[in-house]
């Protein structure tokens, strides 16, 4: 059977990578902030003998590519190398996902791409008292819609079935539909406004024009002037207005959750309380890292030392000259053992703790607190997190100072700092003018 090629797209921080990991069993890095995935990841899974090859794409706000990640995503979608586009939505802010879905729908005229709208974070939405009418969504969108909780195995299993069902249905459907006439610009001619003048995906002058019109317009009436070719409407998305559909399909039963959240936010970002909480939290993590790391450090050192004396004895027995023993055991081995036993435990303690803070969603608040101060030195608040991540473990590991990868250095930028660069303030803050990507 033919392999299905699918791709995961969606707004940043809706859990695409978590869904990807759930589907493929891989361990792509995930995190509770925007822009964790910066390049495509490929994986595959099978169900009842059929195989699906799936690509995890970086999160995008719209198809108007501005950042590197958005460019990657757009080029991938328009390349025509996929059969099924799985749009991941956030149940807690469905309207955002619908806006992106609408933009993607306008691309569906290329290559008869089929869609599956997967509404993730349903557990979070339930906790916040948000109810979503999936039947209405399915009816109005004209594509399969499924609810999903990415951390739940049953939910992922259901999603797998939905993926194969959606891909199977579209294939049947496209076999029935008459073929499109060959286009002069790689499939783009079907798009509104794209004339013969365009030369391909990258150079297509009509692309900004037709992606721009969806978000600019004020709340639309249900019939907006987007023409989807007649023969494709059967398999592709129906026309819809994101605002209207979101207001119809989403019911918020508990308005108190926002109040509580707002209260907590005010406390965490208050001028006085925010700083106190931040300092205390950092000190606590600092303290836990330093004291906690002592025990495994001592243990590791003991083991390494035991091995060292055993090795020295073995070298002596073999009759190795003194300079060799000195260079290999007292030099290479001892310094490696020392660095490992001193550096490893603080790292192993600090990073999980930091991940915990991240999962609670504290880090964006900390960045908010720090932004005013960081602005004065032409940096942005989220960089204080990079600072914590690169500075705390070396300090916590005592005098064994290994220069951290400096995020401000030019040239080869470490992966992590590139991730954190686009973290909290989704709009490019002024500091990026200093360091163009």
């Amino acid at each position, binding site marked *: 059977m033919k392999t299905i090629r699918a791709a995961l797209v969606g707004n940043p921080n809706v859990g695409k990578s978590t869904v990807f990991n759930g589907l493929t069993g891989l361990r792509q890095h995930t995190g509770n902030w925007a822009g964790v995935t910066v390049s495509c990841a490929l994986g595959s899974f099978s169900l009842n003998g059929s195989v699906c090859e799936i690509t995890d794409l970086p999160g995008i*706000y*719209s198809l*108007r590519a*501005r950042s590197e990640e958005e460019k990657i995503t757009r080029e991938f979608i328009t390349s025509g190398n996929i059969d099924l586009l799985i749009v991941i939505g956030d149940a*807690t*802010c*469905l*309207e*955002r996902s619908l*806006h992106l879905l609408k933009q993607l729908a306008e691309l569906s005229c290329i290559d008869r791409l089929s869609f599956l709208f997967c509404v993730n974070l349903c557990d979070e939405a339930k906790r916040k008292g948000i109810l979503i009418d999936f039947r209405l969504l399915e009816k109005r969108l004209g594509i399969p819609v499924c609810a999903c909780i990415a951390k739940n195995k049953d939910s992922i299993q259901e999603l797998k079935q939905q993926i194969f069902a959606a891909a199977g249905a579209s294939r049947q459907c496209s076999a029935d539909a008459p073929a499109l006439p060959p286009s002069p610009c790689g499939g783009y001619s079907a798009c509104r406004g794209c004339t013969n003048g365009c030369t391909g995906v990258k150079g297509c002058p009509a692309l900004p024009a037709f992606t*721009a019109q969806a*978000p*600019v*317009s*004020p*709340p639309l009436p249900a019939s907006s002037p987007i023409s989807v070719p007649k023969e494709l409407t059967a398999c592709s998305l129906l026309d819809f207005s994101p605002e209207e559909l979101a207001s119809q399909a989403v019911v918020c039963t508990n*308005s108190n959750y*926002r*109040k509580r959240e*707002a*209260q907590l*936010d*005010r406390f965490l*970002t208050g*001028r006085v309380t925010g700083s106190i909480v931040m300092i205390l939290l950092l000190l606590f993590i600092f303290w836990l890292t330093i004291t906690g790391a002592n025990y495994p450090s001592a243990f590791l050192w003991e083991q390494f030392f035991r091995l060292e004396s055993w090795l020295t004895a073995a070298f002596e027995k073999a009759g190795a000259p003194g300079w060799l023993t000195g260079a290999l055991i007292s030099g290479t081995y001892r310094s490696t053992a020392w660095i490992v036993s001193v550096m490893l435990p603080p790292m192993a303690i600090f990073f999980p703790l930091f991940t915990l803070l991240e999962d609670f969603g504290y880090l*964006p608040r900390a960045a*908010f607190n720090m*932004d*005013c101060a960081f*602005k004065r030195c032409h940096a942005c608040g989220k960089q204080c997190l990079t600072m914590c991540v690169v500075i705390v473990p070396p300090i916590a590991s005592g005098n064994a100072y290994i220069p951290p990868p400096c995020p401000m250095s030019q040239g080869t930028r470490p992966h992590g700092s590139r991730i954190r660069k686009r973290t*909290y*303030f*989704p*709009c*490019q*803050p*002024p500091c990026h003018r200093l360091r163009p990507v």
Partner: protein
Amino acid sequence: MLNPLSYMKPGQSAIVHWLSDDRAISPRLMDLGFTPGAPIICTLSRNHGELSAFLVRNAQIALRREDADLILVETVETAEDPGGELH
């Protein structure tokens, strides 16, 4: 009356009316939901609007003053809003 977005105080709601396009950031602001007609609520504010957070399309987004000033809004007087009772 139209005001720049940075004039908003926590708890106030407003409707976006106009967006300047003289900086590269404005299309990005539009992608984030600051489109004409969109309802927004100011949730947090630091240093008299130097840095503020807004609830747009059910997500909180923080903007610095220079970016928030690109957006003109009409403040809506509401009896109750999420942050209104927190003084």
